[in-house]
């Protein structure tokens, strides 16, 4: 593999995961904060809130996972490697 492409791929893979986790991190923090607020206000609704929170966490987390998929493709299945 061309060393320039190898270096760029590794840097890009790191950036894909690193930058990609900023947004979902902020989002999950906000969601968890509001969920705790909701539970504090209405402790009897804890079960429902937890269910909705976990489901929305899975959606937010999948955004980071997209970055991870790109990073994995760059490292293990690089289309520019030939």
């Amino acid at each position, binding site marked *: 593999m061309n060393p320039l492409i190898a270096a760029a791929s590794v840097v890009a893979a790191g950036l894909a995961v690193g930058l990609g986790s900023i947004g979902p991190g902020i989002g999950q923090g906000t969601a968890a904060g509001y969920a705790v607020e909701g539970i504090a206000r209405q402790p009897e609704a804890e079960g429902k809130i937890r269910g909705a929170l976990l*489901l929305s966490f*899975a959606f937010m987390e*999948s955004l980071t*996972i*997209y970055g*991870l*998929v790109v990073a*994995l493709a760059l490292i*293990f*299945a690089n289309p520019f490697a030939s």
Partner: protein
Amino acid sequence: MNLATIASLSVGQHLYWRTESVAVHGETLITSWFILGVLGIVSILGNGNLKSIPEGLQNVTEFALEFVRDIAKTQIGEEEHKEWVPFIGTIFLFIFVSNWSGALLPWRVLELPNGELGAPTNDINTTAALALLTSIAYFYAGISKKGISYFKRYVEPAPFLLPINVLEDFTKPLSLCFRLFGNILADELVVGVLLLLVPLLVPVPLMLLGLFTSAIQALVFATLAGAYIGESLEDHH
């Protein structure tokens, strides 16, 4: 047995079975067939001799059915959910059992010439197939219910949204496919990397987290499939 062989990482390595024109991923097929076998045997044993007061395995299968029916009912609605319970149930059970088999069964003890056994869902081809099936299902649902007027939804709520609505048909299966694949592969990679560093005890909490996220991903996939089908079935007035 050498611990390093259990912990080895091989992403993108596959056991190819070649015929003249196509090559298939052997390890994915082996594990998929295993899971289909497990599901088939459990349902035959559980439902072969139905009783009005369930006992033994029938409890498990009835619980699974009720769980799936609840997903379908909340996403598709009271009237139309019944004919979609089999589809959503198949998708949910296959993904759930595959994910948990990848996390619970020591597949890596069996050595293959190339690649390694794992959850079938850590191969992007499996998840792409499941996502495309979901696309076909919601197109079928919409067209069989509304006929040609199903395509009216592309120009709703305003005609200039047409490109975005068309694009959505491509992003839905793409995101379903990548979400499942990425989550399962990420779980297996994290556990694999930790096993390389510390082979004992330390990876156990992460394995438990993996079990949890795998179950949630199966639920998310089934919920989204239900939501897409429900979306194309709903009436616009």
